[in-house]
């Protein structure tokens, strides 16, 4: 207690002598030290600051709060011996405290309406989603009616960025997937001495499902996030507004090229994915399973027809559409903060992968029904 103050009691007067550093760094100790003082029977408190070496707003605030506590207990408080600068701080706190009375509810915890708020959030999000989908659909339509020359160049750029640039990574992933498939199927088929059917399994899986699916998921991770982050940043830095006031339809030059570009790029990417997957299977066939390159291609030609390839390729534009629309839509929804940008980018990737898998399930069921 002796560190920051000393206490004297004399006939109804409690005198608190302050000393040393009453500053921000010591606020905790100061509060505790003051709280430890027992007001006792005295009905008058005097704060004296003879030995005060340093005093700042935080220190003054601690003192003022304590004096308010005493007033509530009907104990008179007075300040004595303050230097002009010290007193200035105190006066300040008193002025500011007077202002604070305006909004009494601010410090009370607000009652939480968890369920009401959740339902409201769902409703608001739904309306917002419908609103923005409609808005973008309309401007896309506008854009198609009055195409701008910028769209063509931008689309080509997007095909390069989302398609050509992704070829190596997509091919590596599919090559590895081909290896995995070949190994796993060979392990089962060995029991029947039917190693050659590995080709059927690998080729069907890659062509009909995995080629396009892996390509789409890689693209969702690469480009879906890029779309959301790029458009979100453009929203935050008012670039989107700048385009609008220049008379350009931002949806037309930002969204259409991305959607169009990806719808062209992903089917092409799928072709590369399929090739890499087959190469992976053939590689394992030739090196481990005694199926040489010639018998692999022969078996491939007899088991796969063009329909199997088309099944995979026909899904690609739909997946591309889902990825591009989710990414751009989420990007356009960014407003306000960097935090929001991060959140919506995550949402864009998660939702597009989710939608891809849902769409794939629907495709598979429908194709199985119609025998495609």
């Amino acid at each position, binding site marked *: 207690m002796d560190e920051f103050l000393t206490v004297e009691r004399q006939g109804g007067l409690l005198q608190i002598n302050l000393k040393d550093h009453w500053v*921000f*760094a010591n606020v*905790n100790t100061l509060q505790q030290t003051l709280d430890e003082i027992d007001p006792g029977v005295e009905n008058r408190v005097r704060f004296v600051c003879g030995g005060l070496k340093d005093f*700042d707003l*935080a220190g003054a605030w601690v003192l003022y709060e304590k004096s308010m506590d005493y007033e509530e207990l009907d104990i008179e408080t007075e300040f004595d011996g303050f230097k002009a600068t010290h007193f*200035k701080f105190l006066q300040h706190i008193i002025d500011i405290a007077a202002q*604070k009375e*305006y909004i009494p509810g601010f*410090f009370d915890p607000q009652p939480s309406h968890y369920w009401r708020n959740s339902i409201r959030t769902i409703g608001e999000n739904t309306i917002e989603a419908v609103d923005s989908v409609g808005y973008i659909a309309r401007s896309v339509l506008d854009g198609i009616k009055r195409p701008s020359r910028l769209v063509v160049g931008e689309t080509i750029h997007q095909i390069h960025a989302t398609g050509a640039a992704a070829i190596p990574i997509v091919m590596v992933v599919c090559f590895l997937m081909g290896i995995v498939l070949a190994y796993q199927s060979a392990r089962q088929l060995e029991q029947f001495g039917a190693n050659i059917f590995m080709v059927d399994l690998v080729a069907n899986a890659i062509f009909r499902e995995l080629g396009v699916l892996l390509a789409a998921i890689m693209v969702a991770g690469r480009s879906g996030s890029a779309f959301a982050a790029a458009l979100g940043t453009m929203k935050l830095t008012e670039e989107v507004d700048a385009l609008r006031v220049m008379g350009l339809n931002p949806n037309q030059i930002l969204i259409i090229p991305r959607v169009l570009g990806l719808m062209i790029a992903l089917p092409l990417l799928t072709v590369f994915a399929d090739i890499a997957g087959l190469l992976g299977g053939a590689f394992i066939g030739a090196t481990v399973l005694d199926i040489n390159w010639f018998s692999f291609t022969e078996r491939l030609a007899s088991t796969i027809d063009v329909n199997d390839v088309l099944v995979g390729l026909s899904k690609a534009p739909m997946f591309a559409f889902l990825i591009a629309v989710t990414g751009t839509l989420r990007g356009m929804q960014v407003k306000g*903060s960097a935090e929001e940008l991060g959140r919506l980018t995550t949402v864009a990737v998660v939702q597009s992968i989710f939608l891809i898998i849902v769409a794939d399930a629907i495709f598979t069921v429908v194709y199985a029904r119609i025998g495609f």
Partner: protein
Amino acid sequence: MPEQHEHMITIRGLVNRFGSQTVHDGLELDVRRDEILGVVGGSGTGKSVLLRSILGLHGPNEGTIKVMGQEIRYHEPGPHKKWGVLFQDGALLSGLTVQENVELPIALHSDLPIDTRRELAVLKIFMVGLDLNAASKYPNELSGGMRKRASMARALALEPKVLFLDEPTAGLDPISATEFDRLISYLHANLDLTIVLVTHDVDTLFGVCDRVAVLVNKGIIVDTLDEIVKHPDPWIQEYFGDPRAVRARKAAKSRVKT
């Protein structure tokens, strides 16, 4: 007698080079305790680089910088609890409310209970002339002037001894700018503050600053306003001879008289 003054910031032999271009060459500067020092200079004379060097955000090629006796090294912790910085566009964290933004440094550098932290933050928010309504808002919901004030509250959160202001009035309308100048004077008068402000605004310069540091010829010339306008350097003559500066000077003088 400069020896009588306690120096809050001392810079010795500062050299900053970017490729073949030398921005500062042996720059020396002393900032006295309790003064408001305005830093001016043409584009490319290294105002920002100087400020960033002092704050440890830029590593100078040569020279030593001391703030309150502590030597500043690039990317190493400086006297964080003793200085506050107001960045040009506020640099408030966009994911937090104003209140939370001001509480953040307090929470980082102390173990105060939440109530105390909150009260202290509110104190600072009132101090810069905002109210509780503004305190509960996010930075993007505020006007430019309010954002600067909020950022000022954050800079003041830890009761700093030195305050750095980067272009405090840039992007504000004249009324807000004048009000902000008043806020700077008010804070300086009421707190133990040494203020270094980088500015283009001649009104701020004449209205607020005690001394002016002009960056010319890769060095720096520091003097009081009355003296510096007489300096023979051509850039200084041009700068202070500009009609806007002349008007600002007259306005500041008439304000002192009344």
